[in-house]
């Protein structure tokens, strides 16, 4: 019954999405206002749809929680012996469930907008909700027609097939939904952008309404990428944290677009400039999240990954992609010319810096997109090429280096027009720091140019990110400004971690017997013992490694080399030792034969990675900055709204009393 309730709720939600779309479109066509018969349906449709989609998702979660093995999805992906936590998180640990989570979150956002958002003109809201309904309808169709999560088995399975302890990892359970929420946030921003474009209402007010969604999406994407990178770092056993792998790029591209969108939205909200550009980025950001989904799930690019390749699924997502992205790009091309570009500004102004960095971010996005898709293109001609870090790193740096420089200076500048002379002291300080670090690092050692540049820029940027606070009363600095400062500082921290890791990492590969010691970067590493241990469905060789830094206290690390038998697979469980200035990373490998005395020798890999943790601390700081900005922006907007409301009320009273015109209120 549970599965059937879920399926029914899903169908009803789809019907409501269709209603939301058609009522919205007809209302727009007939030029109805909020009280029109059809127009009145749009908001309730969005709200009820949210309830139904959430209900469908909860029903699926229930099926997983009680391990209902007559449901095909549960039988394929769960197991009655799994801990309850992983039974529940298993709901979205598969294609169908994750798509259902996606539409549920999307419907909830739509419901939230329909319920609360009253700032925009009626027509724009109708168009936005209609777009939202249109996007949702495609995903419902995808779920119901090609990936039904509630499908029953003719005969219930005796036991599920999903007892894979590899997947029972809390990071892995929480990381995908984080990214989905980010993607959904971008789809909301997309709906707003299309709504505003269709009704020719690209205004600062529109930007303010859209901004929390963009910020929210951006925060979640940042968290998702940060977590995913750390997961790859500790799980893969070689200490790499970013591989420019297609699947990683698929999550980076929406983030780059969202970062650009976020900043151009700020310009639009504050200065009523960059209207077309903001709309374009809104479309691009959502396109990138759809494209990423397509690349990951269709298998066109990931022949190298063993993802579930399903041509039907791929075709469906590609069709959705064609409709939404193709449609919105066509609307953009037709309508963008009619949207006034907005206010002008000088090159040396806050807007100028933001525009510059927007162009740089878009260029980096273009490079990543090109490098990711290029192998797909050549494969059509039966030529196979590889595009990896040696391409992505330098080519994106061409745009990233100027971007970081402008990022240091931009927040110090005034809106509209500024004279560089006004902030020359600040610029001189930052410039001196960058050049100083550059010189020192270049003299000290033989490091790659990119690492040296990264170190220098991160130092300059770290100082510069706090300069906007100079001369201000800290208690009175708006929360959104704190958010910006923290996020920019986070970028500097992360950049420092990346550069430091790539410049200063020391690697020690060795074959050692128990009791033998190795030196790596001031650490004394002793392999104490290697013993077999057994887990639920694996056996492992577990090493006890004693790590001692100089004369400091000794710590024990226990890396494992695990062999799973279902599915048969070998993994390395790395052991990490975190210090404030870096991480020691140890992996035990295979047996390496015996030494001259007949003692067993083991492959031991140890890395000392100075400040590598800063990469992820930086990511967290960026996300925190984004969260602060949301709180700041939303509360300011609410205050403003109350003030306007009070203004209107007063005006109404005054009109009633004196029947005379009062001006000055509500015209911010």
């Amino acid at each position, binding site marked *: 019954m549970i599965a059937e309730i879920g399926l029914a709720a899903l169908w009803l939600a789809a019907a409501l999405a269709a209603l939301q779309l058609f009522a919205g479109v007809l209302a727009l066509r007939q030029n109805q206002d909020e009280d029109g018969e059809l127009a009145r349906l749009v908001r309730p449709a969005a709200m009820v749809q949210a309830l139904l989609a959430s209900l469908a998702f909860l029903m699926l979660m229930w099926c997983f929680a009680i391990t209902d093995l007559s449901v095909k999805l549960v039988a*394929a992906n769960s197991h009655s012996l799994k801990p309850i936590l992983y039974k529940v998180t298993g709901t979205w*640990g*598969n*294609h169908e*469930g*994750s798509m259902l989570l996606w539409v549920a979150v999307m419907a909830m956002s739509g419901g939230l907008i329909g319920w609360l958002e009253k700032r925009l003109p009626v027509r724009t809201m109708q168009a936005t909700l209609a777009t939202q309904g249109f996007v949702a309808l495609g995903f419902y169709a995808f779920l119901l027609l090609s990936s039904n999560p509630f499908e029953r088995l003719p005969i219930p399975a005796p036991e599920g*097939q*999903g007892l*894979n302890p*590899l*997947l029972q990892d809390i990071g*892995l359970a929480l990381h995908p939904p984080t990214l989905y929420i980010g993607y959904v946030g971008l789809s909301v921003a997309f709906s707003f952008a299309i709504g505003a474009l269709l009704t020719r209402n690209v205004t600062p007010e529109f930007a303010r309404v859209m901004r929390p969604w963009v910020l929210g999406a951006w925060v979640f994407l940042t968290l*998702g990428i940060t977590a*995913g990178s750390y*997961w790859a770092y500790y799980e893969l056993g*070689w200490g790499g944290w970013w*591989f420019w792998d297609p*699947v*990683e790029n*698929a*999550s980076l591209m929406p983030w780059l677009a969202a970062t650009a969108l976020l900043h151009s939205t700020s310009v639009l909200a504050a200065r009523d400039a960059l209207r*077309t550009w903001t709309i374009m980025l809104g479309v691009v950001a959502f396109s990138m999240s759809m494209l990423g*989904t397509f690349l990951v799930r269709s298998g066109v690019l990931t022949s190298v*990954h*063993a*993802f*579930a390749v399903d041509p039907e699924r791929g075709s469906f997502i590609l069709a959705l992609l064609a409709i939404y992205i193709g449609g919105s790009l066509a609307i953009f091309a037709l309508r963008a*010319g009619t*949207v*006034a*570009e907005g*206010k*002008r500004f000088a090159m040396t102004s806050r807007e100028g810096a933001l*525009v510059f960095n927007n*162009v740089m971010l*878009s*260029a980096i996005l*273009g*490079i990543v997109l*090109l490098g990711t898709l*290029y192998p797909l*293109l*050549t494969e059509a001609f039966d030529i*196979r*090429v*590889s*595009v*990896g*870090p*040696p*391409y992505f790193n330098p080519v994106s740096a061409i745009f990233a280096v100027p971007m970081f420089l402008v990022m240091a200076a931009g927040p110090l500048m005034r809106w509209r027009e500024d004279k560089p002379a006004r902030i020359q002291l600040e610029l001189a300080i930052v410039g001196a720091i960058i050049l100083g670090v550059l010189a020192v690092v270049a003299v000290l050692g033989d490091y790659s140019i990119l690492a040296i540049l990264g170190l220098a820029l991160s130092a300059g940027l770290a100082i510069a990110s706090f300069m906007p606070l100079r001369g201000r009363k800290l208690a009175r600095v708006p929360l959104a400004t704190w958010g910006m400062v923290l996020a920019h500082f986070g970028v500097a921290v992360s950049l420092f971690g990346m550069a430091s890791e790539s410049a200063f990492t020391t*690697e020690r590969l060795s*074959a050692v017997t128990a009791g033998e010691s190795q030196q790596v970067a001031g650490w004394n590493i002793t392999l104490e013992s290697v013993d077999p241990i057994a887990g639920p469905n694996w056996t492992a060789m577990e090493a006890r490694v004693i790590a001692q830094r100089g004369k400091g206290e000794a710590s024990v690390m226990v890396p494992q080399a695990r*062999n799973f038998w279902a*599915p*048969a*697979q*070998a*993994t390395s469980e790395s052991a990490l030792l975190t210090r404030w200035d870096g991480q020691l990373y140890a992996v035990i490998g295979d047996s390496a034969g015996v030494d001259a005395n007949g003692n067993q020798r083991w492959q031991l*890999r140890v890395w000392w990675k100075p400040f590598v943790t800063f990469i992820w601390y930086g990511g967290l700081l960026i996300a925190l900055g984004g969260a602060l900005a949301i709180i700041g922006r939303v509360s300011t907007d609410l205050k403003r709204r109350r003030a306007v409301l009070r203004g209107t009320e007063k005006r109404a009273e005054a009109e009633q009393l004196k029947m005379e015109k009062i001006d000055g209120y509500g015209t911010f």
Partner: protein
Amino acid sequence: MRALSIALLAAVLAPLAMLGVPLTAQDSLPPAPYAYTQLEDPALEAQAVELMATLRCLTCQSQNIHDSDAPMAGDMRHQVRSRLAAGEEPEAIRQWLIVRYGDYVSYQPEVSSTTWPLFLVPAIIFGFGLLLLFRRLGRKRSDGEGTDRAPTSEESA
């Protein structure tokens, strides 16, 4: 691998195929001498690491040979290290592999008849970006893009 991957496909970021090495086709011989042993000379070893990080493991495919436990990757590391130790230049070793496996084996695309767009397009993006910036940020503030301008009071005071 398949079951794992289906269940994991939701993990958009995770480079899954790298997660582990399937055991179905494993041999029992110890790895090649230089597969897990560094070169004595730190400068040569640094060159080796730099090169290995840009060569593609052919059996695991989505990993470079420096970061892989696959036996074939170990044998490729052995080739790289022993050739470097014998005095070959890193780029010569890369070329040696490209002659045998085509561009696929190297993560570092070189300008050739099949890869020129990878270098032309960034140049175009660069030019386009400059053009865009000049048009938007041109010194004459009132020099707008005709059709883009609102007819009424858009000009900032």
